[in-house]
């Protein structure tokens, strides 16, 4: 006898909302409606993140290889012996190898050298040059940092300023600006960034490939003067940085970072906890 339609259906595993959505998702996938399929399948994985089949089908309805790869790895995380996921992953990895092999390495805006150190003599000479430039230009302060935002030298009136944070922000801003230049198709880098306020103005610029200079004035400053400062900085500072470091100035380098350094560091960190 046929069942009465109004009779409530028991929630067997086949009839849970999760399974109904999964089946609707699979049907949409089979009909080629990838957008609907994806939406439904993601609903399933939200309801039940351990739903292996939904992850597997998700891999089939995405056009992005890396995304599909991540879905299949999730399937394997749930069930390492899932053969469809294994085969799918092998296929994707070969496609990715082909694609990445043909693609030239993306241009990096700056490949930064990882270790950078200044001898005492270099650091002193840099401070002297910075003092002189700050004095001659009547800038409130001048800050030299590297392109990763690492503060190298800050001279002038810096007492009320967190110069390390300023360096980090300036490096981020310059890097973002270079990326903008690249995106709009500008081959050269944008050279100088200017921020003018009511009482202060701030100029940011690259100095060579690895360094940036931040100049803060208390008042409006003719751009010609800023350009002069930058020329001075390039002429006087770059040769100092480029000097070979003299190794006799840091006799305790390796000793300082000896085995118990990390342990001592941890105890300082522990004692500084509130």
């Amino acid at each position: 006898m046929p069942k009465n339609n109004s009779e409530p259906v028991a929630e067997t595993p086949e009839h849970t909302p999760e399974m109904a959505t999964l089946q609707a998702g699979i049907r949409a996938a089979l009909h080629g409606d990838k957008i609907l399929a994806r939406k439904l399948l993601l609903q399933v994985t939200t309801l039940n993140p351990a739903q292996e089949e939904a992850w597997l089908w998700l891999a089939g309805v995405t056009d992005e290889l890396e995304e599909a790869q991540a879905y299949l790895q999730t399937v394997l995380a749930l069930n390492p012996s899932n053969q469809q996921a294994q085969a799918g992953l092998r296929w994707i990895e070969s496609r990715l190898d082909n694609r990445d092999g043909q693609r030239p390495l993306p241009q990096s805006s700056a490949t930064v050298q990882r270790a950078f150190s200044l001898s005492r003599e270099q650091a002193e000479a840099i401070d002297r040059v910075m003092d002189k430039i700050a004095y001659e230009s009547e800038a409130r302060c001048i800050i030299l940092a590297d392109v990763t935002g690492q503060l190298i030298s800050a001279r002038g009136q810096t007492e009320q300023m967190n110069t390390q944070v300023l360096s980090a922000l300036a490096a981020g801003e310059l890097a973002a600006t270079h990326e903008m230049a690249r995106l709009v198709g500008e081959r050269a880098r944008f050279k100088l960034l200017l921020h003018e306020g009511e009482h202060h103005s701030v100029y940011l610029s690259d100095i060579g490939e690895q360094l940036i200079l931040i100049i803060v004035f208390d008042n409006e400053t003719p751009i010609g003067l800023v350009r002069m400062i930058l020329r001075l900085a390039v002429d006087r500072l770059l040769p100092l940085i480029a000097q070979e470091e003299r190794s006799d100035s840091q006799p305790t380098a390796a000793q300082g970072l000896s085995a118990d350094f990390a342990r001592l560091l941890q105890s300082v960190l522990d004692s500084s906890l509130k």
Partner: protein
Amino acid sequence: MFINWKSRELNLKIVYYGPALSGKTTNLQFIHDRTSPQVRSELVSLKTREDRTIFFDFLQLELGQIKGLKPKFHLYTVPGQVLYEATRKLVLQGADGVVFVVDSQMNRLPDNIQSFKALHRQLIELGVNPAKMPIVIQFNKRDLPGVAPVPVLHRLFAPNGTPTFESVATEGVGVFETLKASINSVVAYAQKQL
């Protein structure tokens, strides 16, 4: 790493990396809240009105003088949202160590995997060998329902014995353990470079 032998400062950069909403900023907030103001800077957060990181967060720890050196750690987070890929790479420049913050929720696994791959790709693009970079993995949000089992996360993110830590960053669980492990591996790596 940057060493100034005049001021005897040893500067090291640690970047908290991971997918959107995995808890990177929460880690830094907890570190900021629990360390004394003498050793840490203010926490600088560049975020949207919805409290999402748009550029980076920055916190500096200055841990006094140890064996004649003044170690300073610069902690950064990257914005996790997919569209900020270029920004992530910029922040990653010059990193001496990475903390990868995994969102343990099962339905976030693909996002974690994609972010982990992007990290490796970006390191290579920056000329850094990911296998040599000191990386520490944090499995965050362990208090939530529907989290992936730790052995599964191990297999995906730390198959070669990378240090891992379980955490609930909102409550501070595992936050300092992760930071200390990262500091350890970064210092060990710096020792090799000197």
